[in-house]
């Protein structure tokens, strides 16, 4: 009876959040095959521990936490190396160098992971800074700073790209 309930909950969760988890995984590792691997491992681990899930409403953040751990394990890292670099010093490729056609997707890929991850969680997941801070194990203020800097950096490069495009 309980197994049947859990199976149904799990299947509904896979259908509801599989795609979101995949996109999040993709932006963590930037490889579509590794991303699917991460999602499959995440759900496999979640299923093993399904009985311990107390609040089904919190399943998505729980899955995100598992996925982050799987990703860290994949690269044998204990934690992310958070940085508070100034956005002007972010090592983004030059729009001019890319022939003035640098795509936004490419810019996001070049953001340091510490900026990219909260940005993806907020834009795709719709999470508030406080929720993201909880998932990443940091403070709300730190998340706000990273999101502000990430968007400033993207904005500056988009403006440069648009200017360069107009000049062709």
């Amino acid at each position, binding site marked *: 009876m309980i197994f049947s309930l859990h*199976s149904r909950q*799990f*299947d509904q969760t*896979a*259908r509801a959040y*599989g*795609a979101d988890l*995949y*996109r999040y995984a*993709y*932006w963590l*590792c930037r*490889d*579509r*095959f*590794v991303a*699917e*691997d991460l*999602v*499959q491992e995440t*759900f*496999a681990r979640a*299923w093993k521990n399904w009985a311990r899930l107390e609040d089904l409403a919190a399943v998505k953040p729980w899955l995100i936490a598992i996925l982050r751990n799987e990703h860290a394990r*994949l*690269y*044998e890292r204990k934690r992310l190396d958070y940085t508070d670099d100034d956005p002007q010093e972010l090592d983004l*490729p030059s729009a001019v*160098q*890319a*022939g*003035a*056609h*640098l*795509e*936004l*997707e*490419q810019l*996001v*890929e*070049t953001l340091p992971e510490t900026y990219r991850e909260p*940005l*993806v969680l*907020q*834009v*795709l997941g*719709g999470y*508030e*800074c406080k929720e993201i801070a909880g998932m990443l194990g940091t403070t709300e203020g730190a*998340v*706000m*700073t990273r*999101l*502000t800097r990430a*968007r*400033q950096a*993207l*904005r500056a490069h*988009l403006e440069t790209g648009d200017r360069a495009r107009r000049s*062709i």
Partner: protein
Amino acid sequence: MNCLEFRRDKLADPRRLPPEALAHLDDCAACRGFAAEVDENEARLAAALDVPVPEGLAERIILRRKTGTPIFAKASPRLGMLAASVVLTFAFGILQWQDAGSQDYARLAIEHVMHEPESFTSARSTDPELFRRVMHTFGGEMQASLGKVRYMKLCPVPEGTGWHIVFETEDGKLATLILIPAKRMKTDSEQAQVGGWNAVARPGGQGFYAVIADSPDALAKADELVRQRVRWRG
């Protein structure tokens, strides 16, 4: 709230502004303009992050629960346990572009295509005018159309950013053109065959270009098409 505080809040979470920020927005035209621009960028960002999800992913997850065995899409190479090393190999491959020896340019172009199979199944940046501009910027002047552009994507390479382009020729065949900014090739051309793919790399524009197709015959035709219809500067 002043303009600086408003802009900080807007950049931190564009979709959720506190009441005092909303009040500031009503009173400040400059910040309304700023907010509109941020919202526009946010929409572009959301579209860029919304990458396609492999078909049947949820079903494979559920099947794994039932069978206990990982199931992967038929077309997906099983990276699994070797995922990290594959990522490193791919990165290494990219690093090899600039110092590639004989036949390596063509071989690496094939490996790049094999790593991005979605280039044949998804439409992306198909504007012919954008393609013409990309070619112009790289140093290639289009004398006539190569066919219908189906896919264009920027790819990181050590000396900048290269372009991965898939086009459909007039006889309905798909061919890939890769533009790589790099030091000049030492030979006039290099050819390779890997995993059923055929490629030729030639110097051109800001570095070299490679044409890739799924048969020697298709490659010969696509290569000839590029040679006839693109005039390379430099």
